[in-house]
């Protein structure tokens, strides 16, 4: 049962921010609603006390995709379906688009937004690992105006972010990776259709003359939230590619994950499989690179 509430439809961001600040405890933004509505329906503790849902659909600037030479900036209301159908995103951010196409069902993707995905910050948010390896930044609007923040800083712990009361995430800024980056996204679910992820991995690497250049690795679902592995990336950047190296990276990833999660009920399965999946992913990326050459 959905509790009684009002839906507020501001026409501008300023109006929205004002309303949110006037009702700090009782107002919540609704984007696609695919997390919040079932949450309300089931009486989830995360959504109690809501009296107003602030629906931003009338604010067109939140739906725009703006490309310049450096970045593609997407409005926070962009749905996964819109993302999947955008050629510029497909060409520049294939991992992100691939992850978007694995989110829920068509019906969910037609409503759910990429911003909602990371603001909800569930461990299994599929788009987060690709956003992290693309070094996504987000633009926020609060009473003190706009500011930017790397997404990796924004995400704190499961279902918690640095979003302050009264603030709105307005845009996601995706810096275009240099051409020589090559990568892939991997998702494991219990079934093929409409699966909640058990493991997600994103790897974006530069390969120069059989050496790893910059490497970026991220995981989701197997870690408490989507996260990058900066130490690991640094350690292996510049290494000569070999089968053994790829295995070492994967095993180190397993160690890093164990450090973050500790031993959990699912570790026995997830930790080895994550290493194995990362190895297969890296092997595929490297062999794809060879074929391109």
């Amino acid at each position, binding site marked *: 049962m*959905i509790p*009684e509430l*009002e*839906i507020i439809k501001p026409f501008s961001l300023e109006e929205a921010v004002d309303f949110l600040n006037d009702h700090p405890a009782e107002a919540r933004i609704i984007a696609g609603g695919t997390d919040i*509505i*079932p949450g309300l329906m089931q009486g989830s503790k995360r959504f109690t006390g809501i009296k107003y*849902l602030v629906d931003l659909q009338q604010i067109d600037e939140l739906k725009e995709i703006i490309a310049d030479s450096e970045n593609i900036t997407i409005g926070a209301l962009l749905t996964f379906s819109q993302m999947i159908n955008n050629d510029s995103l497909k060409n520049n951010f294939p991992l992100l688009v691939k992850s978007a196409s694995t989110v829920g069902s*068509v019906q969910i993707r*037609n*409503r759910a937004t990429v911003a909602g995905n990371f603001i909800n910050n569930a461990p299994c948010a599929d788009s987060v690992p690709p956003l992290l390896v693309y070094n996504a930044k987000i633009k926020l609007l609060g009473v003190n105006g706009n500011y930017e923040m790397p997404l990796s800083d924004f995400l704190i712990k499961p279902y918690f972010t640095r979003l302050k009361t009264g603030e709105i995430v307005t845009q996601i800024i995706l810096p275009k990776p240099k051409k020589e980056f090559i990568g892939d996204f991997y998702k494991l679910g219990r079934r093929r259709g409409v699966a909640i992820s058990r493991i997600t991995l994103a790897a974006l690497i530069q390969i120069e003359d059989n050496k790893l250049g910059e490497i970026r690795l991220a995981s989701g679902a197997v870690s408490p939230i989507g996260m990058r592995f900066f130490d690991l990336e640094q350690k292996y950047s510049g290494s000569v590619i070999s089968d053994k190296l790829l295995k070492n990276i994967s095993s180190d990833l397993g160690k890093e994950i164990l450090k973050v999660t500790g031993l959990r009920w699912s570790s026995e399965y997830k930790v080895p499989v994550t290493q194995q999946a990362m190895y297969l992913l890296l092997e595929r990326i490297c062999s794809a690179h060879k074929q391109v050459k």
Partner: protein
Amino acid sequence: MKIKVSFILNGLQVTVETEAHRRLLDLLRDDLNLTGTKEGCAIGECGACTVVMNKLAVNSCLVLAGQIDGAEIITIEGLMKNGALHSLQQKFIEKGAVQCGFCTPGMIMSAYALLLSNKNPDEEEIKEAIAGNLCRCTGYKQIIEAIADSEI
């Protein structure tokens, strides 16, 4: 608090007075007596409540009345034209795509939305389009055949 919502439903302009937090699903079934749209899970997992909103398939259990002002919504009841079955409806009958029939309206609406954007979907595209519509009777095979054979 009641609000007034105007939208196009199956080609007709309608205005209803309702509460903002009411689900589109309840609005259709209880207020507008369009019971072809079914409730199976209430959390957007089964697809039985699928309708087409602004040319896209959506779960009507995940849309609130306060969100539909100005939208164009098509339900299973809106597919027939001049008393004739839509091609999808006809093919569902001919291919044996219907057993208990509870998932059928949502399944057909997902297929309809697919055909709106893709006139000749291949098998994989059809499967993807209906992956959010659970069916426990048919094993989907005859449904996929029916959609592959349909025209918009």
